């Protein structure tokens, strides 16, 4: 229910003052987590895979992760999308660990791309599995492999 708590908090005048937000009294009355005024989305790419390829050829690290209990953009979708790229595999599918438990599963591809699942996490991964998400981002930023033991 955290959405409701956040809506209540962000719409408090003392919070907005502390955040230096809404200084002009925006005409659409209440702060919402998702916009209800933005109604017309004019262009949406059907795929961003060419961009991922561009990054890989420009030495930009690409990590893709997936909470494995999300049904909105599920792990199956992401795995199928990656499969269409036909990338050479660097390390085979294997579990990664945090605090003696399986944190998820991972596979690395040549060209500095890593795919990792986060076990037990839904769409908003850091909300559901905060420790695993922090471990994942630390390894991403450090450029180190997720621990395989």
């Amino acid at each position, binding site marked *: 229910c955290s959405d409701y708590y956040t809506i209540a908090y962000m719409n408090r005048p003392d919070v907005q003052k502390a*955040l230096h937000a809404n200084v002009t009294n925006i005409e*659409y009355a209440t702060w919402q987590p*998702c916009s209800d005024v933005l109604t017309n989305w004019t262009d949406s790419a059907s795929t961003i895979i060419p961009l991922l390829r561009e990054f890989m050829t420009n030495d930009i690290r690409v990590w893709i992760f997936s909470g494995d209990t999300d049904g*909105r953009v*599920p792990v199956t979708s992401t795995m199928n999308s990656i499969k269409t790229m036909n990338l050479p595999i660097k390390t085979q599918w294997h579990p990664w660990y945090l605090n003696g438990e399986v944190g998820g599963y991972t596979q690395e591809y040549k060209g500095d791309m890593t795919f990792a699942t986060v076990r037990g996490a839904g769409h*908003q991964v*850091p909300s559901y599995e905060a420790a695993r998400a922090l471990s994942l981002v630390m390894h991403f930023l450090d450029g180190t492999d997720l621990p395989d033991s």
Partner: protein
Amino acid sequence: DGLKENDKIHKLPGQPPVKFEQYGGYVTVDESAGRAFYYYFVEAQRSKESLPLLLWLNGGPGCSSLAYGGFQELGPFRVNSDGKTLHKNNFAWNHAANVLFVESPAGVGFSYSNTSTDVKVGGDRKTANDNYQFLINWLKRFPEYKDRDFYISGESYAGHYVPQLAHTILYHNKKAKKNIINLKGILIGNAVINDDTDTRGMYEYFASHALITDEVVSEIQKQCKFTVTESKESDECKMAKSIADYNTHNIDIYNIYAPRCH
């Protein structure tokens, strides 16, 4: 001058004591249109001078990085059920980086435009350009981060926002023949990547997790094109999808095992 100091958040209402600095305020992305983005920035809990700068974007399109990333996912605080006080997130990502949240595009959260169509009409291209302009102007306010290793992260429809912003950064870096922004990597989660496989995969996942039958997913795969708009799909496709919708409408598909909020 002084903009950064003016943006310093001394303490949020109901906030527990912390030892890192936080900032919030507006950065103009289009002066003539009067378009400005709201940002919330939390410095790292240690070694802020050397740790990288990490931008987090949410999806939607049209959902707030402050709402989800900032206060429900990876930010330093989460809101208590009273809606008035905060508690610490022990696994906040500012243990690993200086983390920047931005409400984008205009019309999302506290971000606004004085041009009314700006907040109603959006798109991938405009969002990427505005996000780039936001970054350039934000780095003028926080020049100590200008040459810092920079990473972009996000989830869901940010599977579009993140790569499109990264592409824009690369474009401008190449054009200038120097690193205007020192982009090192991107991290995207449960991301909208490729429409066809994304949508097909959703129904496959429902079937493999016993939410719909193998017959229904087989009918969907057979009858639906996925490359056309929903209204142009065949009646057979619509019928199969409606069975899947009926079977899943009482669970939270954003986490199939989670309790719903009443």
